[in-house]
């Protein structure tokens, strides 16, 4: 469930734009005003604001934000202001640029979005980067990572609830065979995880648990240093229990020495309108501390304020 709160009566588009424009003008920037508007508008409303702002002031709102804001606050506002599809395209493109373990971000986008959302992201990618997402991912990854990530970002999974139980049992067996012989990047493993519908995968992994006594991720823990295995485990989690996956990302981001603002910003902005409420509940369950309190302790300034507006206050 979403954590975004939008007032019942919002100002007109023109008023919102005027206020934002005011926030940029004169000495300094009125960050609080920016937060009070943008953090309480949904994707459709933000799109309209951007359009109206451009028509009225002849400048892309994002450009203005980029000029006026800085650091982590700028990061969260810019990412938030984007349309979800554009945001995913932007995040994916950033992830192909660097050498780091941003394979995880690519997998995250490919597996936690609905097939339709992933498609929209791919369309936005064409428009913005003049290339296809899969060609960039293919070009910038290698080996097992490429083997897994290209099919994942290219998938257009069936979205129905129908499940073939016999098939689930068979494919659970295949997965177990391959994993037992440490063939983690075997074509069959990739095939099942990257093409089957989420409902089918869930059924398959339930069978795995039933037939072999424990969840599949337990068998993927062979080598703690193995990055591919880590990605595979995260893939499974994203496909079956995305909120648990996001809770962990947020937990690690906050617990990390100095905080991983990139990850925190990414999760909050991409999930605020989807399931951040569930992630919050998971966070509390796992850490005995409400998420907003943890964010408050770990971040500061306008960055903190913006995050908290998106995350919402805890009921406690």
């Amino acid at each position, binding site marked *: 469930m979403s954590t975004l709160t939008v007032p019942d009566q919002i100002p007109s588009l023109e008023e919102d734009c005027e206020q934002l424009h005011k926030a940029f003008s004169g000495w300094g920037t009125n960050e609080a005003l920016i937060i009070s508007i943008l953090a309480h508008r949904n994707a459709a409303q933000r799109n309209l604001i951007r359009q109206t702002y451009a028509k009225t002031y002849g400048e892309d709102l994002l450009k203005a934000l980029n000029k006026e804001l800085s650091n982590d606050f700028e990061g969260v506002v810019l990412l938030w202001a984007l349309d979800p599809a554009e945001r995913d395209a932007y995040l994916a493109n950033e992830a192909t640029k660097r050498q780091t373990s941003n394979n995880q971000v690519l997998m995250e986008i490919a597996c936690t979005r609905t097939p339709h959302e992933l498609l929209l992201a791919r369309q936005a990618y064409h428009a913005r980067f*003049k290339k*296809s997402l899969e060609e960039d991912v293919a*070009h910038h990854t290698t080996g097992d990572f*490429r083997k897994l990530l290209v099919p994942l970002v*290219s998938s*257009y999974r*069936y979205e129905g609830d129908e499940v073939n139980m016999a098939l689930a049992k068979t494919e659970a067996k295949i997965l177990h065979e391959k994993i037992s012989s440490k063939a983690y990047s075997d*074509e069959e493993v990739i*095939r099942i995880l990257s*093409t089957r519908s989420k409902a089918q995968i869930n059924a398959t992994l339930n069978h795995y648990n039933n037939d072999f006594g424990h969840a599949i991720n337990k068998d993927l823990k062979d080598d703690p240093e193995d990055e591919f295995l880590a990605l595979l485990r995260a893939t499974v989690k994203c496909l079956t229990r995305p909120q648990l996956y996001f809770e962990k990302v947020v937990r690690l981001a906050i617990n990390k020495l100095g905080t991983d603002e990139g990850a925190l910003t990414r999760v909050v902005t991409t999930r605020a309108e989807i399931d951040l409420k569930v992630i919050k509940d998971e966070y509390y369950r796992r850490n005995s501390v409400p998420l907003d309190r943890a964010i408050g302790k770990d971040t500061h300034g306008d960055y903190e304020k913006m995050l908290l507006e998106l995350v919402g206050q805890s009921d406690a």
Partner: protein
Amino acid sequence: MALPVEHEALTKAFSGFGVNEKLFISELGRWHSEQRKVFRKRSEQFFIEDERGFERWDHHHVALLEREFLRFKTTLVLWTMHPWERDAGLANEALINGPQSYGVLIEIACTRSSEELLGARRAYHSLFDLSIEEDVASQVDGPERKLLVALVSAYRYEGPSVKEEVAKAEAKILYNAIKNGVSKKPSEDDEVVRILSTRSKLHLKTLFHYYKEISGHNIVVDFDVDMYLKQTVECMYAPQTYFSQVLDAALRDDADEAAKRALIRVIVTRAEVDMKEIKEVYCKLYGVSLSETIEAKAHGNFKDFLLALVEKGQSD
């Protein structure tokens, strides 16, 4: 008494592409029992002399006849169908028919626009409760699986932007892959699959141009070693040539059922796309017009319908 000339016409009408309904009505429909008996006695290819003293229909031939009667209906239904449903159905049929029909998958994946292929994938969800990639991945057994799955999963960029240096570099990669074709099958080469299945068509056209400079040959010639790769490249480099060749194979006297079905498929799917260009290429390659060949080889309503589709747009 029926005349031999009519027998010959009827024999022809009974076998071949479609059925000559008018002839059946005007001739066979008017014969009395003695004339029909003579026909049966003289048509050894259709009737067997039964040991119990009568001429018995060869059931195999009745089945063939049924199939030829159905061609008009098949063409009609396919023509009226939404292109998305059509392509999804053709793809599914190809999968069921097995390796000899995998070329149809390549044809659909490579000659349709990105949006058309996407539409086909949507329709596949509706028709079969599966995604096309999961079906292809689970049904295709051989080394061509990688290529086929990648091709049907593509959502290529379709804009004008091309990076010349990249196209040149990738032309070299393909060239080397063919040179090393002895040690490693090109269709299993990850780089070959990556380039052919993710790059935009414009990028590939540019690449093929550089390829010719490097190799001295047209890429289609060099890729002759692998039939799936060859067809992939043909479909992207010169689709109208590819389609002309398929049509020619379908209209030969010794064409098998698969080749014959290709005639309907190609004409129906290209009638409003590039039939004009296909006709030009066909004429250049074979020295006779497509319409003339269809006139000579097909019969009845089926023939008339095909000609109507082929000549569609002539007056536009």
